[in-house]
């Protein structure tokens, strides 16, 4: 139909925020709290959602997703807890070193890839280390609705047990903490055994822990639908690349954080689109020449199309390599 004019931003909507508190919790983890400069309420969110924090780090933009860990019923703040990763790509170091109270930052609207199954009769949370953060919001949400939950939380040591004391004192009967350095471990098999029908298990932590929970639950006859883990699909930026558009007779640069479609629009090329999500097929574009690898992310083209490299969907897909010429 195309009832344009439209506002043609891609990706999740953004929210301007001010850093309202920076609270070091232990040697590794710091909580950052945000408010809105205009004093407006934040959009509500569902427990398990994350936000993508945009960091301006000396001319380069970093985009890191963090679970929202504040109480979803409190619209006045958003909070995240960030574990410093000295070996990582630098986002968490930037947060720890550079972000100060009063700084202006940008967050995306919440996106939830780890939601509660609201049909659950009982919710069992299994956290490893910083994996505790989404459960902080889930616990707050379930407490509001009198949900039935329990938490099993494995941390390295008492000193690194982020929020462990707070949780234990608030919910002494529901929270179980295990310290590695005291040779304590979650007794998963016993835990899975004997849970009432309709129980859901949620795991957030290191990959090994997630795999262990899925495998053990399957061995004990648990349906996969009842075992949830966060699949962290970070937003999908990519390396900048150059494209020649032969009909328009221009060569354009696609930046790290924009899509090929957005780059074309920025350069004044009138490119078709409807969904901007790789589903409708409108933006399908013929490839004239390519020397490199396509990063196809659409649901429109089939596997053969993806393999043969003759077509690309500019709203979501990218390219890595030397030359790309499109029939546009």
């Amino acid at each position, binding site marked *: *139909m*195309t*009832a*344009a*004019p*439209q*506002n*043609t931003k891609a990706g*999740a*909507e953004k929210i301007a925020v001010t850093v309202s508190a920076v609270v070091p919790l232990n040697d590794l983890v710091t909580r950052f709290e945000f408010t809105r400069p205009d004093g407006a309420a934040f*959009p*509500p*969110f*569902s427990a*398990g*959602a994350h936000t993508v924090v945009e960091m301006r780090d000396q001319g380069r933009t970093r985009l890191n997703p963090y679970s929202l860990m504040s109480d*979803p019923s409190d619209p006045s703040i958003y909070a995240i807890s960030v574990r410093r990763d000295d070996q990582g790509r630098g986002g968490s170091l930037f947060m720890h070193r550079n972000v100060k109270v009063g700084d202006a930052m940008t967050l995306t*609207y*919440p*996106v*939830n890839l780890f*939601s509660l*199954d*609201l*049909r659950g009769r009982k919710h069992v949370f299994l956290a490893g280390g910083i994996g505790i953060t989404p459960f902080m919001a889930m616990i707050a949400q379930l407490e*509001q*609705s009198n949900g039935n939950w329990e938490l099993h939380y494995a941390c390295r040591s008492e000193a690194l047990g982020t929020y462990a004391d707070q949780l234990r004192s608030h919910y002494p009967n529901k929270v179980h903490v295990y310290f590695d350095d005291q040779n304590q471990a979650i007794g998963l098999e016993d835990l899975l055994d004997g849970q009432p029908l309709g129980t859901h298990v949620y795991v957030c932590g290191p990959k090994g822990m997630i795999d262990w929970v899925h495998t053990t639950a399957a061995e004990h006859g648990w349906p996969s*639908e009842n075992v949830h883990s966060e699949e962290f699909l970070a937003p999908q930026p990519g390396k900048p690349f150059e494209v020649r558009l032969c009909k328009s007779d221009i060569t354009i640069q696609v930046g790290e954080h924009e899509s090929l479609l957005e780059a074309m629009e920025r350069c004044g090329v009138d490119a078709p689109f*409807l*969904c*901007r*999500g*790789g*589903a*409708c*097929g409108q933006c399908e574009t013929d490839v004239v020449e390519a020397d490199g690898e396509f990063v196809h992310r659409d*649901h*429109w083209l089939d596997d053969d199309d993806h393999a043969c490299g003759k077509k690309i969907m500019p709203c979501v897909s990218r390219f890595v390599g030397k030359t790309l010429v499109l029939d546009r």
Partner: protein
Amino acid sequence: MTIQFNKETFRDDYSFRNSDWAIKRFPFPFHEDSYMYSVNMEQHRGGPPGSVYEKRFDVDEHYLAEMEDRAIVLAEDPLRCQSLPHMTLAGWDTLELIMTCKSEDYPDLFELHRDGKRWRWVNKPMGIDHSFTFLDETTLPCGPLEYITRQTQGDFAVLDQRDEMLWMDAGTVTTQADWSLDFDIGMNFFEWHAPVPMAHELGIFKRALKFLLNVQQGAPARRLNWTMTVNPLLDTSPENYHKWGIQKTTLTPENIGAKQHLRVELQTFFRLPRSNALLFPIRCYLIAFQDIVSVPKWGRRLHRVVRDLPDELATYKGFIANRPMMLDYLGQYDDGRPTSPGIWPDLETEPPLDMGR
């Protein structure tokens, strides 16, 4: 502009009418001279001023009459509004979304005053001024989904999202194109679409589902769907099909222009923030054939679309038996001239009908 609400009915004497304003802003669904199912989705971020796409929830001259019709249907059959137990939060989400949007988009008609959890909702056209506690069902006369959808045009399906799938776990459905919420509730995206011909084979539902799973908060989407209805009957339900089906046989060459209606659904998709469910409002717009052909471009195009539509689709949409009579009527308004691309009426630029021959 302030809207003049019509006094009209969608049953019995069928006094429903579209004003000239409503005809010009009608969401004509065909952007070219032929039609086939497609993944015709786009972002829902406004549209030209005055168009049905402009606001998040369009309110028009039929508002009060449609709400009266809904009240009649729900009184006769409460199963038209249902919500599985885990969907109450999504019901509150729906209430919040609609109250927020309507009070922002139509401040002269609707007001929402919030003081923490104490909310006051004013719906001037319906004469409602009600204070309640957000998230406390005991302060509403019925569930939150039913409460707000009794005050909002269009049907509503509320989809729970689990295991990379959408599940139709709640809804209010009284203006449907012949499907039953009571039967479909609890089904998944592929199951409730099972009766649709051809689209599964074309891969449309697979792609559409992937897109919908990714619809994010603050970034709604929309699409159009259409069918045909004899008489401006909103409640073409399977439940009552044994009563209204016979009306399809009452068309004559004399009455078809007034009786035969094109039925267009403006379908929108909103991610609900607290429940992570997806809201699917299905807003039904009706227009008599005689009003469509008052726009020359639309008359020409509708004739061509109906003529060339595959039999499977004409059968599924329930008008295969009446198609010849429709074509006889519409053919009078197709002079064979080309039509401009797009859905808009283009009244200034498209030539008037020329049947001079």
